[in-house]
């Protein structure tokens, strides 16, 4: 049996332990683990691309009592996103935390978070998902509080409280599933779920929990302070990866596991909340005074777009149109991850050099930090959805599905959201290029600007130009139901 799915989990986990034992070497261990994980994910991707979905039973115990790991195209695509973003943010973190104590505190929790995320993506068992979700949440909270100050800790506490309630709701849903169907293995459940009150109750409970964790309007209130006050690499991971985990689970539940039990109308609620998130988040981003707060509100808005896909996907019958829309959803999630992490890393760079991140006082940034400003511009292009970014193609497909299905409402929402995104990104760029005394400290090592730049290039160029490859990889048979076809 192929044990490849185990590595993306064990490598960061083992490295976390090593980082606790050898705090002085924690940065090296972290980067090495990041590279090794990326390699493992790459190999996994190659295998899945050539042979289809991989299943691995941990310890040789079959599902029922044992836990299976399942790597399908969707999971692997997100694994790749996670490894790349984590590697880049981790690289940036080596230069960010000047204090050696902070460095050694950062790495074990960071690696743990990564391990939890990867374990969740590869899980095929509902309770296992609960555990990994909790692990992910706890490590994310710890990272968010790493910054120190009162604001950060308050935000982290709120995140923790809210996240725990969400997890408990999810767990309650798991209980209902077990009570009704007697199994928690997703592969088995896939064929069993019927449209009946028990399924609906379970789905409602799990969704409630996940909506909190994915910060969908109106349960988004915890996100802006938490992401804005965390250290830059942490914010990058929180916005790009941690919230995506919850969205991924929503996809798995709504589009895959519970799909037969669903009627398209219920997905409309998600879509409407998503639309509200787009408008509310973009509006607040326009009014934000601080760059990191702007980025956090932008995350709320961008996640809203992902939820707008749900009513469209629920209404499309299985076939090429649905596959294309699904691929677009994945593409948008991926592009956002890269673009948002690039934005946060660039904001971190600016904050380090200027001592603050107030947007109106960003004058002179273009001269002092040209590479970082370029990163901001590229990330902006990807967040607004201008060509050639992946977001452009994803939005095209989104609107195309909306037109095809006659769901007109989403068109003005997406258009308005994109224009507002243009408004807030160009506002930042306008100030950055503006006159300023450049109270910036001289940049010591230009290489610190590189990770952010690379992330932005991936978002804007690679994912845009290489999108067809992603579509070919993800779309066909990415869902559990597809395994039965």
């Amino acid at each position: 049996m192929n044990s490849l799915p185990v590595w993306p989990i064990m490598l960061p986990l083992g490295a976390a332990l090593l980082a606790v034992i050898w705090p002085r070497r924690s940065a090296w261990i972290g980067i090495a683990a990041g590279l090794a994980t990326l390699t493992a994910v790459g190999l996994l991707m190659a295998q899945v691309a050539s042979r289809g979905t991989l299943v691995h039973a941990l310890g040789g115990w079959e599902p029922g009592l044992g836990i299976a790991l399942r790597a399908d195209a969707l999971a692997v695509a997100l694994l790749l996103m996670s490894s790349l973003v984590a590697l880049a943010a981790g690289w940036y973190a080596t230069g960010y935390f000047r204090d050696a104590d902070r460095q050694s505190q950062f790495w074990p929790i960071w690696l743990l978070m990564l391990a939890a995320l990867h374990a969740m993506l590869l899980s095929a068992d509902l309770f296992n998902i609960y555990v990994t979700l909790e692990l992910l949440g706890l490590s994310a909270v710890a990272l968010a509080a790493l910054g120190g100050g009162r604001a950060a800790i308050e935000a982290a506490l709120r995140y923790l409280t809210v996240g725990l309630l969400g997890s408990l709701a999810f767990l309650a849903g798991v209980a209902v599933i077990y009570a009704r169907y007697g199994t928690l293995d997703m592969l088995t459940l896939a064929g069993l779920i019927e449209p009946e009150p028990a399924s609906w109750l379970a789905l409602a409970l799990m969704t409630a929990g996940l909506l909190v964790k994915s910060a969908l309007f109106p349960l988004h209130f915890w996100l802006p302070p938490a992401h804005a006050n965390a250290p830059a690499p942490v914010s990058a991971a929180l916005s790009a990866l941690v919230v995506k985990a919850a969205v991924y689970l929503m996809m798995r539940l709504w589009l895959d596991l519970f799909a037969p039990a669903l009627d398209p109308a219920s997905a409309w609620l998600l879509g409407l909340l998503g639309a509200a998130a787009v408008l509310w988040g973009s509006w607040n981003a326009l009014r934000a005074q601080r760059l990191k707060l702007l980025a956090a509100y932008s995350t709320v808005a961008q996640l809203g777009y992902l939820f707008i896909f749900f009513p469209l996907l629920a209404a499309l019958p299985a076939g090429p149109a649905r596959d294309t829309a699904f691929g677009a959803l994945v593409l948008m999630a991926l592009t956002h991850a890269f673009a948002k992490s690039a934005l946060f890393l660039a904001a971190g760079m600016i904050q380090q050099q200027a001592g603050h991140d107030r947007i109106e006082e960003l004058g002179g940034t273009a001269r002092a930090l040209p590479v970082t400003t370029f990163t901001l511009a590229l990330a902006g292009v990807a967040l607004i959805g201008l060509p050639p970014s992946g977001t452009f193609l994803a939005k095209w497909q989104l609107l195309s599905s909306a037109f095809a299905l006659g769901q007109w409402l989403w068109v003005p929402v997406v258009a308005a959201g994109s224009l507002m995104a243009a408004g807030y990104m160009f506002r930042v760029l306008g100030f950055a290029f503006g006159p300023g005394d450049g109270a910036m400290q001289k940049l010591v090592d230009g290489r610190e600007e590189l990770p952010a730049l690379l992330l932005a290039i991936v978002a804007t160029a690679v994912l845009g130009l290489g999108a067809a490859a992603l579509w070919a990889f993800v779309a066909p048979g990415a869902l559990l139901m597809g395994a039965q076809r």
Partner: protein
Amino acid sequence: MSLETWLPALIVLSSLLPGIIIFMLREDNHRLRTSLNLLGAFVKLLLVGMMIWGVFHERVFETRWTLAPGLDLVLHADELSVLFVTLSTLLWLVTTVYAIGYLENAPHRSRFFGFFSLCVTATVGLALAGNLFTFVIFYEMLTLATYPLVAHKGTPEAVRGARIYLAYTLAGGMLLLVGAIWLRTLAGPLDFAQGGILGDIDGLDPTTLSWIFLLLIVGLGVKAALVPLHGWLPQAMVAPAPVSALLHAVAVVKAGAFGIVRVVYDVYGVEFADSLNLLAPLGAVAAVTIIYGSVRALSQDHLKKRLAYSTVSQVSYIALGTAIVGPIATIGGMVHLVHQGLMKITLFFAAGNYAETLGIHKVSEMDGVGRRMPGTTLAFTIGALGMIGIPPVAGFVSKWYLGLGAVEAGSAAWVMPVLIASSLLNAAYFLPILYRAWFREPAREWPVPPGHGGRLETHAFLLWPPVITATLALAAGLFAAAPYSPLEWAEIIAAREYRK
């Protein structure tokens, strides 16, 4: 891998690659930057020459790249793309030379020329676009590439002007995008085909198509400065002269007009669009814009603003040409694409020369300038006469065909007054300038620009471009009947459009 597959992509790359490299060059690396610029321009010219020859002999050039399921990036050379690409390439070369002279000793030149190259890449890309999807991609890229150019000076007015420009063009771009997606969802892949594709598809609801047409035209009309979407254009005059020249003659405004031509001819098909009663409103808007632009131009003392409103007016001739059904009007509109470009760029180059060499920004300051800068003013004169429509400058040819086409289509009743009124208004705001320049005495001593002591009236790089473009404008009119002339190309395009 044959030439047919690669040539369109190479033409786009020939300005993209130098642009990217120029961004990374150090500010004081003049020689490399200039060489890259000129090298790119010449290579592009060469490639375009090959394309012209090929298309004339009915070879098919197409680059196709699948970006997403059902969405192909297509670069395709048909006669209309060749027309626009040639114009863009020639004028890019000339403007590059001009910009090098204009920006001597100015800061941030690497940034400027980098974006400049991107701007041309985008223009050439949308000229060669083979479907609406590709067109929209390069259209948006054009907005992004021109925004920093408009804001280049960095002054508060420049930033403000650029912001207005951005707001207008992004909003327009969004409308265009929505219209394009809607149409694509309804009608399938929208590869441009001469004679239009929508007429051949069954089962399309006319009301929906009309709404989509409205979205597309409004989206394109922002860049094409159709009234009332033209508000950004006078504000964008804060840009340096080479930018204004390029924007008005060949890049932004022409891109919008070109888009309208594509939508009417190669997506809807002119006869089909007429059957949906879409062309009458378009013609009305074009007519209003023509008159309005000219009227506003009369009251402007600032030279560049007067020229800006003149552009608003003149570019709508192209829209007018598309709105009149008939091959001759089509020819008139299309050939004006080229002619207006040549004439307007000459005028802007001259305006830039006056500002740069003598500090003149207003018409009222232009007394006697003809004696001080005869070459520039001669070029200006040729351009102005062409705008009015006086033979043998090229502008006359376009107006003649438009008028004739209106008669042929039976629309003479409302088109002729518009054409005549416009010519009269053009005369009213251009002739006084010419009179002042040649026949009045200067009000005061001309300032001597620092470091200037040569024989020429101004820097060579500033003088030759307007002279060259003025000569071309004259030649396009004189030799309109010659093979490979813009008129000839327009005739071929019209013939293929109406073949059905």
